[in-house]
């Protein structure tokens, strides 16, 4: 683990005035949802010119705490102080007026509207209700300039990448002269380069004396950005530490209540014969042609910048999208790969990139979500049995250690990481020969991550070929045997994970590599 | 009052030749109006004009639009069975301004040059007189009403008028259906549950009354008599004992849609040749003739 080598940002930052009065402070906050206590007696504060990180397992209550601070929920008990003055926020608007803004975990944009319209939402420039469209665009340009972006404000925001949309949201918050900005897992859907841009921006904001709350599950980001760090567990306050006075080990054990020694849980796996052969597969939008192999028992990561085409490639293998040319072979047999149903029958499983949009049935129970792809296998003449299903689901449920009262509850009431485990359980039930995972640990806490890695490793050890798309470089390096680097739709490098470094991967991924060790 | 600067009807002119006739009815799925259609189709075949039949779907707005389209079409005669006799007035005026001869059929239409219509109030009177007599002037009865449109309401008015002369008959249930068999059946079934002691039922038209008859059959009720209005073929079937043994259908005042529409067409031709009749002769009222189980064998039908 390289994270510990980073210099804690706070130590060097001139803005950190330990004596400064907190911009915002909460004391004794509790909040229940029905029978579930989401927060119990939590305290937290944020000072000018600091980045205060918040971390903890999925479902620890981080988002809930932030929603209370920003006026989305009312706390059951506890007080909120803004610059020492007790306040109550009846709505997000009131919190905004007090200089507190939030970038939510889920995007809050309106896809059909333009960037400019999204930026001005709720406070459109107008005279007696009539829009001033020129000012709308001008103001949008100014706001975008705050985050150093020059996108055309007239583009429908839905056409932008998640990262760009997030920049728009940040621009909106900055333009409202926020003193405190909360970012709830902002990098979960961002590429390396987009994250870098975001971090630079956060640095500037800190220098300007803003207080930033940064929520993340990524250890290296926490180290890179934070001045202080607070850990929540099961809705309770565990502790606040200055980064200069703590260690990775300590943070992890604060989060999960135990130590995680080997995050990636590598076992000695036996690499078998070639299972997956991708031959000159090309798709729309200048993707490919790409060719590569994955062997049984092998874990291969597909890395690259956002938009490099990794998702496209794996979707074509799975048959979710149509390839314009090329061939895919599994154990020597050509995969027809025209639709996912067929692929599943042929032993291919795909964990899609976006769990809410592409994987989950939010209104349905966890069990129903897990069993959906294998119903046919576990039914007699199309008739299913609840008992039989439970018997099949239970062991997987247990082994994944999903944090929920019962497998019968609706999946939407699970935290993000636990939802991801439910999707992974669906893949496991398929007992695939080829397992494809697109961003398998996006938004997942470190405890769950280590379990997911352990499961992936087990599947590979069972002889399956595993292909992972990951934007989390340390993860890709840590878990895989081999890395395939993509750049602008093509495969540009194949690297041995043992020898590769983050820097080397980035050089290939950005197309700035000039050495001659290219293998692919 | 319509000051249309464009008057397309004028170009066609009133050349004696009839090339285009429009027949507008309120509800074509009712056999009563379908009978009008087939009668007119026959005449169209003989006289060699084009017949344009439009269904008003019980919607005054739709009939307005249909009249406008007929004006465009250069229609010579409109035989109009209006959804609402007064409400259609402004559209009739437009048609007449455009040089079309408009004759109302079955129900009057405000502004029409002439009308051939049944006396619906009289039909209601005949039906309920027959029923009251059959009930022996005493007992409880039901009225299965229909949608609130002129012709239906007039029948109920006629019926209630008659019932004032029968103080020993009480109307214990009065519900509105959709002038069809199914709602007649459903409403009657439920009203029979509410009121055990029933001797007679008046349905505002034959489909409704036949629905009531089915309800009685399905509830195995005897000694209850049903009357309708129209004199439709199904009512005839229901009254012919051997065809429909359990039927409690007693009587229906027959109206003659086929004759009525043919007569209306003759009146229209007359209007074109000799001008509109004066107010006193504007309406040709056709009295319904009562058909009962006793007289059904003499009834010619539509």
């Amino acid at each position, binding site marked *: 683990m390289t994270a510990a080598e980073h210099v804690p940002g706070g130590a060097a930052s001139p803005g950190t005035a330990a004596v400064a009065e907190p911009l915002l402070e909460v004391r004794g906050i509790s909040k229940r949802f029905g029978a579930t206590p989401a927060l119990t007696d939590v305290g937290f504060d944020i000072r000018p010119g600091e980045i205060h990180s918040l971390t903890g397992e999925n479902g620890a209550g981080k988002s809930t705490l932030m929603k209370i601070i920003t006026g989305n929920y009312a706390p059951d008990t506890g007080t909120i102080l803004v610059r020492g003055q007790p306040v109550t926020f009846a709505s997000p608007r009131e919190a905004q007026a007090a200089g507190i803004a939030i970038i939510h975990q889920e995007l809050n944009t309106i896809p059909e509207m333009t960037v400019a319209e999204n930026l001005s939402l709720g406070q459109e420039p107008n005279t007696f209700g009539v829009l001033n469209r020129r000012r709308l665009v001008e103001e949008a340009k100014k706001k975008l300039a705050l985050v150093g972006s020059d996108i055309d404000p007239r583009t429908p925001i839905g056409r932008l990448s998640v990262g760009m949309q997030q920049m728009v949201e940040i621009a909106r918050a900055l333009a409202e002269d926020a003193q405190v900005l909360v970012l709830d897992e902002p990098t979960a859907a961002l590429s390396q380069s987009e994250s870098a841009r975001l971090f630079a921006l956060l640095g500037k904001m800190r220098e300007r004396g803003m207080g930033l709350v940064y929520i993340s599950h990524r250890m290296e980001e926490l180290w890179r950005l934070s001045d202080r760090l607070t850990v929540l567990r099961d809705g309770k306050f565990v502790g606040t530490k200055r980064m200069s006075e703590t260690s990775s080990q300590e943070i992890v054990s604060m989060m999960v209540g135990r130590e995680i020694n080997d995050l990636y849980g590598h076992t000695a796996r036996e690499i078998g014969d070639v299972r997956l052969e991708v031959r000159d597969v090309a798709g729309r939008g200048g993707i490919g042609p790409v060719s590569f192999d994955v062997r049984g028992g092998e874990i291969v990561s597909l890395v690259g910048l956002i938009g490099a085409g990794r998702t496209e490639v794996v979707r074509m293998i799975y048959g979710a999208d149509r390839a314009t040319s090329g061939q895919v072979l599994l154990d020597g047999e050509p995969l027809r790969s025209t639709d996912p149903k067929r692929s599943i029958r042929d032993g291919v499983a795909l964990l899609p990139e976006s769990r809410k949009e592409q994987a989950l*049935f939010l209104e349905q129970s966890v069990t129903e979500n897990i069993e959906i792809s294998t119903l046919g296998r576990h039914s007699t003449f199309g008739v299913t049995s609840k008992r039989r299903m439970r018997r099949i689901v239970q062991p997987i449920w247990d082994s994944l250690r999903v944090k929920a009262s019962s497998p019968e509850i609706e999946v939407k009431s699970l935290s993000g990481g636990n939802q991801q485990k439910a999707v992974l359980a669906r893949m496991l039930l398929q007992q695939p020969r080829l397992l494809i995972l697109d961003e398998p640990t996006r938004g997942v806490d470190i405890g769950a991550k280590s379990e997911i890695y352990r499961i992936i490793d087990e599947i590979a050890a069972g002889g399956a070929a595993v292909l992972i798309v990951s934007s989390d470089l340390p993860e890709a390096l840590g878990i895989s045997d081999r890395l395939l680097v993509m750049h602008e739709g093509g495969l540009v490098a194949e690297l041995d994970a043992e020898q590769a470094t983050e820097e080397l991967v980035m050089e290939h991924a950005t197309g700035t590599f000039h050495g001659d060790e290219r293998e692919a | 009052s319509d000051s249309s600067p464009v008057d397309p009807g004028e170009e066609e002119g009133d050349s004696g030749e009839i090339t285009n006739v429009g027949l507008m009815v309120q509800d074509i799925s009712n056999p009563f109006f379908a009978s009008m259609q087939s009668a007119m189709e026959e005449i169209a075949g003989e006289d060699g004009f084009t017949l344009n039949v439009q269904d008003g779907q019980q919607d005054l707005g739709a009939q307005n639009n249909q009249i406008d389209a007929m004006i465009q079409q250069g229609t010579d005669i409109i035989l109009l069975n209006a959804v609402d006799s007064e409400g259609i007035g402004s559209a009739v005026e437009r048609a007449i301004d455009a040089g079309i001869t408009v004759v109302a059929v079955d129900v009057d239409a405000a502004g029409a040059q002439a009308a051939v219509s049944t006396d619906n109030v009289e039909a209601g009177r005949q039906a309920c007189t027959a029923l009251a007599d059959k009930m022996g002037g005493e007992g409880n009865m039901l009225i299965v009403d229909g949608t609130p449109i002129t012709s239906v309401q007039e029948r109920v008015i006629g019926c209630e008028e008659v019932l004032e002369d029968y103080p020993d008959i009480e109307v214990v249930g009065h519900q509105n259906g959709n002038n069809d068999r199914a709602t007649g059946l459903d409403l009657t*079934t439920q009203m029979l549950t509410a009121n055990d002691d029933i001797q007679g039922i008046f349905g505002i038209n034959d489909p409704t009354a036949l629905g009531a008859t089915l309800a009685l059959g399905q509830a195995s009720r005897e000694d209850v008599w049903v009357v309708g209005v129209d004199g439709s073929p199904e009512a005839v079937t229901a009254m012919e004992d051997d065809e429909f043994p359990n039927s409690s259908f007693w009587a229906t005042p027959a109206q003659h849609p086929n004759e009525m529409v043919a007569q209306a067409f003759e009146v229209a031709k007359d209007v074109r040749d000799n001008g509109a009749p004066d107010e006193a002769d504007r309406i040709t009222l056709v009295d319904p003739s009562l058909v009962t189980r006793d007289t059904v064998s003499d009834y010619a039908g539509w």
Partner: protein
Amino acid sequence: MSTATTAPSAATSVARREERVRKLFYWWDRVGILGVLVLLIVVASFASDNFLSFSNAMDVLRAISINAIIAAGVTMIILTAGIDLSVGSILAVAGCAGVLLHVAGLPAPIAVIGGILAGALAGVLNGTLVALLVLPPFIVTLGAMTYLRGTAYALLDGQPLIANDLSYEALGSSYVSVVPTPVIIMLIVYAVVWFVLERTTFGRHVYAVGGNPEAARLAGINVKKTLVWVYTIGGACAGLGGILFSARVLSAQPNAGQSYEMDAIAAVVLGGTALAGGRGRILGTLIGAMIIGVLSNVLVLTNVPYFYQLIIKGAVIVLAITLDSLRRLGQSR
């Protein structure tokens, strides 16, 4: 329950109690509108002496049977986030088909099956347009409502076709012991649809397709096939409704079933199925249909004038959904 068994650990017993509470909530969440129905029945029995009798109960059930059968199919369609406005017209076409087959001299089972198949066929067309051409179901079935009505008229040249000796008359008017046959058929339909939705893979697919079509596709569900089947079943249910209708009125009525789609959708939505798809229960629909049926019945029994019936009916529908929604709000607090 036996106290003789070895005492379970405290933890297990708490878990069991929680499980029971959870199940209760589960059940209540699904059939909560039942409370509204019960309330309505109580009010109705005060309003009319004749209401609470076995024969009136059967009247109500018979009166709702056709709407309820149609609504069962519509429930499945709405679960996939679709809608079917053509069920009323399908009913007419199927009734006409059934009677025509009877008139053509074919035996009763053939006529009945023919009618249901006619309905299914109309559903296949709806489903194909919705699934394969990805058209909005609202417009597809609005179009179908219009052209199928035209077809029903055209089949019979616009006139009702009376069939006093209808071979399958028994379906409409006979009794099984003391229960009217249409009511029995309705209960069978609900049992079957319940089984299909709750106990078969196809049922799971219906919920999945309605909940998240993209996820369903990636999970290996043939979304298009599922949709075509759902509309086909919806059509078949409406077809069965048409057969029962014709058996009840002993005739083919080309104008039968007008605006039935609204009654069916009202039953489905009152029953708690979300128009957005993926969430709802078939039992709720039955209760929704009963609410509408009881309401109509008691208004007739108490001889309320037509205009006021409309006012009361509309108000009670809004009230019912309000009560149901207050319950749900209370729960989430």
